[in-house]
């Protein structure tokens, strides 16, 4: 896999990640969206229902956020089952706040990159292995899943 592709976005939260991606095509809200004990999606209306986000790079278009979002997110961070990186078309303040707070209170850095093209499902698929830099805003697909 020498021909790795690189997607250039904008870094919203610093940190580095290398691992698996889980890709959703629908907006996501963490409050009533995941079980913070397991990192598994509990929203039955969502395309990732029953999938695990734990320690993966979670790709979704944008957040649909209750102001309680960081409550659930940080509980997952505390339990070691939060997504380890986030990639969006647009990262709203509610999502970026989750990463800032995780760093401030739990010393966990969660890189966030926004600026994915709208047809991102052509570039990233669940199971792909990627390298993400929240500083340079790059997403490098290392190998396809």
């Amino acid at each position, binding site marked *: 896999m020498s021909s790795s592709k690189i997607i250039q976005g904008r870094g919203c939260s610093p940190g580095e990640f290398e691992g698996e991606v889980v890709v959703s095509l629908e907006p996501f809200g963490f409050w009533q969206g995941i079980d913070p004990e397991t990192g598994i999606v509990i929203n039955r209306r969502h395309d990732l229902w029953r999938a695990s986000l734990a320690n993966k790079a979670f790709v979704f278009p944008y957040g649909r956020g209750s*102001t309680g979002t960081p409550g659930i997110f940080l509980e997952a961070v505390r339990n070691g089952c939060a997504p380890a990186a986030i990639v969006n078309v647009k990262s709203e303040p509610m999502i970026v706040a989750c990463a800032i707070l995780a760093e401030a209170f739990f010393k966990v850095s969660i890189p966030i990159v926004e600026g994915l093209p709208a047809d991102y499902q052509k570039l990233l698929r669940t199971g792909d292995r990627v390298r993400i830099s929240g500083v340079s805003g790059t997403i490098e697909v290392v190998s396809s899943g």
Partner: protein
Amino acid sequence: MNLTDEEKQILDGAFGAPQRIALKVLVKLGEAYGADRLVEIASAHVVGSSYQIAGEAGIEIYTQLVEQGARVKVRTTSDPGSIDFARWQQFKTPAGYAERQKKIAELLNRMGVIPTWTCTPYTTFNVPRFGEDLGWSESSAVVFVNSVIGARTNRLAAYVDVCAALAGRVPRFGLHLPEGRRGEVIFELTSDLSVNFEDHYFPALGYRVGQVTGDRIPVILGVRRATFDQLKAFGAAAAASGSVALYHMVGITPEARSLEEALGGRQPAERHVVGTREVQETMTQMSTGQDGPVDVVGVGCPHASLDQMKRYATLLEGKRVHRGVELWICANTVVEEMARRMGYLKTIEEAGAKLMVGTCHNDCPLGAWGFRRLVTDSGKFAYYTPTTVGTECIFAGTEACFEAAITGRVDRR
């Protein structure tokens, strides 16, 4: 970001760890969203007051802050908790759960947070003024104070709200800027809908506006009059189905004396016409179940006002809630006390309805009840209760909700 000398000293730790951590969070958020500086706030309102939201992570964060001597710098009120502090046993809340909520209460109290336990703090001890900058969370309260009062706050996230309270500041971007408050999407009511606009159309229209608008700023044309409670219901629904943090209702809300003022001189991105048929379509979408027997009725989302308590008492006068049905009215403790003094509470309780104070169906664990079908007059409840309570949800007007509680059935046709 341009920081004042005092802010730089805070970041250096001159005023202690809690202020340093809080300001660091706010500066990072501001940098991510292009804020030029921080702005001082008149008050804060915090949503991580509920154990259901904050959980053990919240208890850890608050404990750390309290041990470091954290005190809020501005007037700060608490959103609902996850229990009715006086009646949690009556609502079948597990004792261990109630203990954790009480722990949060103790920690917030030590930081100097006023324990209002309400999503309508603007009816109690936290009343913003026009043009004031604030650091608030709770989507239904944010949309109310921005739209109806004309105060200025972004939708803060849980814990960011606590940071704002501790630092007395927020990053200046979005709704703090005049150019961030201009209407973007017009919703024009047909003359038929405008003339025959019923009470329960407010949450239904709000729900539809939220679905279409997302996080942009809607402008509503054609609402002729609206009460405090109707605006509260409209905004709460729009903030739940979308992420609406500010709406302009031309002729009604203070930054929309005219359409031109609401748009701030710009062309709107979209224009939608809404008629009676569209509102009725939305009401159908808001319900996930069919007509039939009902086991729980929820009103008072957002928390009921005293006017609403009077209306509920009138609807229950000489009536009896059907056997096997729970009618719960959610309110804050200030309204509870006034309703008691006015005699409304006596009428309500004699009819077999219950007051649920300082929390609501959404925030309180209700698994022990085994409810199947909930009826509500709230757009926000309609959006969330299928997940939070795990029931079918039927949206109906306030009168129809009380009728359902009394007859034990909901029949919308």
